[in-house]
């Protein structure tokens, strides 16, 4: 059982409070993703869990133990860094079993674990190479291998895929999801890529300025964002956010409409002029301008005939709109 509980965590660097009073429970065996804009404190939170930083106040529990004052190596965690942090002078095999050698594990056991990790991560051919002789994806796998062999209760990842190109990132994303299924440990994963968050997570934690904006499953956040911030952060292309006044609903501060919830209508709706049309094959993304309302993004079927400068009418299903008050909080609509 390796649930991670943060209780009233505060973290200040000098006079700057980066995390003010944060509490969070990461369920055992979950894949929890921390997302948020740059500088919101995701890495700091992860490093607090790892023990690389000490909280100013608050308690950190892993499993049943209070680990707040424990050394990183005593917490049963392992961490994969954005830069991979491989030791350049050691071979892949030494990089992976470095920690095991330090603990003086019996050689047979150590070799078995190394072999198993190499097999799972398809690194068998590369064990004698130096990190500089590997591709980015292979280095990433070595870094993951180094985590796996220690059998941690909790895996921590700090933007592990952000140095990879798009294709490799997609592939590694799938491999990480498989890894989580096969070793069922708790995983805490930091990213600012919302696609990674949506695809990998059981639970997403959206952070903003050191606070938690919302916690929930990917589809919860997508369907019922609790604030304008979450609405804008989750979903690609981004949700359209329009003032209520412009849509004739002055009692609502902000109305959110997802690009896929707008459709082309024969009559009625909003009159729009297309500015740019992007064809992605499966979808067509149109950026349009609506007088009095502003610029909107619309997701249309892939074979839609449309070009820049065209006039069209858009209809937005009122049942699929998101309403927010002046503070940016969600207003629950009374569903009939």
């Amino acid at each position, binding site marked *: 059982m390796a649930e991670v509980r943060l209780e009233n965590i505060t973290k200040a660097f000098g006079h700057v409070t980066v995390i003010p009073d944060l509490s969070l429970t990461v369920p055992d065996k979950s894949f929890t993703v921390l997302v948020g804009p740059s500088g919101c404190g995701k890495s700091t939170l992860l490093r607090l869990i790892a*023990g690389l930083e000490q909280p100013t106040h608050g308690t950190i529990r892993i499993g049943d133990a209070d680990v707040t004052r424990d050394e990183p*190596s005593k917490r049963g965690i*392992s*961490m994969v860094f954005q830069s991979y*942090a491989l030791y350049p*002078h050691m071979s892949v095999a030494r990089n992976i079993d*470095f920690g095991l050698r330090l*603990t003086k594990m019996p050689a047979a056991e150590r070799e078995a674990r190394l072999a198993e990790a190499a097999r799972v991560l398809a690194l068998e051919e590369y064990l004698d190479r130096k990190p500089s002789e590997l591709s980015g994806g292979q280095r990433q796998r070595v870094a993951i291998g180094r985590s796996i062999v220690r059998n941690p209760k909790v895996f921590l990842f700090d933007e592990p895929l952000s140095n990879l190109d798009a294709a490799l990132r997609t592939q590694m994303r799938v491999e990480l999801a498989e890894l989580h299924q096969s070793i069922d440990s708790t995983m805490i994963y930091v990213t600012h890529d919302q696609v990674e968050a949506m695809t990998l997570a059981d639970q997403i934690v959206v952070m903003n300025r050191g606070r938690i904006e919302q916690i929930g499953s990917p589809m919860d956040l997508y369907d019922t964002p609790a604030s304008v911030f979450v609405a804008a952060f989750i979903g690609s292309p981004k949700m359209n956010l329009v003032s209520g006044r412009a849509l004739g609903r002055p009692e609502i501060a902000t109305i959110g409409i997802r690009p896929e919830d707008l459709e082309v209508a024969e009559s009625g709706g909003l009159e729009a002029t297309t500015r740019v049309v992007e064809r992605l094959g499966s979808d067509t993304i149109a950026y349009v301008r609506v007088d009095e309302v502003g610029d909107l993004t619309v997701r249309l079927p892939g074979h839609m005939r449309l070009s820049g400068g065209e006039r069209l009418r858009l209809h937005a299903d009122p049942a699929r709109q998101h309403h927010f008050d002046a503070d940016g909080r969600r207003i629950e609509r009374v569903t009939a």
Partner: protein
Amino acid sequence: MTDMTLPPDHRPALGERLRRAASNGRLSAALILLPPALILFTLFVILPLGESGVYAFYDWNGYGAPEDFVGLRNFEQMFGHSVFSVAVANTVKIVAVSLLVQMPLALLLALLIYRQTPTNAVFRLIFFVPYIMAEVAAGLIWSFVFDGNYGVTASIATSLGIEQFFVLADRELAFYAVMVVIVWKYFGFHMMIYIAALQGVPEDQIEAARIEGASRTQIVRHVQVPHIRPAIAVSAFFAIIGALQVFDVIIPLTNGGPSNQTQTIVTYLYEFGLTRLRIGFGSAVGVVLFVVAVLVAVFYQRIFMRKGTA
């Protein structure tokens, strides 16, 4: 890594290469920029070296032209002279102390203060002061420290209630005192090299090692030292070459004494070549020192400073 030279069979002929160099302006650049450097280098390095190479075979007091050709006699005298053996042994001891005491000490201090904090900056400055101090000044200061009547050693003797001792006049102790001063004078230089190198070690590798359970010393041994190996190779090189040339600290401290127990190769050269006006003999010592330094430089670079090992 980015060696742009083509394999030999693809290499264009010399004439072709010259023509290319001429057409892209490299040749004219070389022709314009090379002569000043070459002339200066010849005037101030090659010629003096060559001259002392010649004087080494003469008995010459420095006045007039050297006329008394004596063949290898200067070298024979030198190698037969017991003080020269002492000087060589002392120089070897200085090399050993530089490598085995001074460098580890410098590394230890560098590890303690390499991070950028205000207190560390103060310590860095303090540790670096001996290095920026003039050698003669340092020697004088330490000669006061070791003074048996008024120095720090005198106070120590008094407070311990033992008889006053004169370190620099003691045949056994004097050279230890000299080595202490040399370590004190130059460790700051090596420390600075290590500090610069340690700051280049990625912090996340150290953190990764901490997570894997490495202790402080294990991190030093398995992560930091391997990273700064090239810097250590360079600092050891400077330590050896510097040790071969120790001179100006010794003159104010002991002037080579007592009874020549603290001579080094260079003080020996000075004492028996220059002050006694035996320029030919001094040149012979200089030639030997030069050959040793060149051999050290060449072999050191070959062995320790190649791309693969560094």
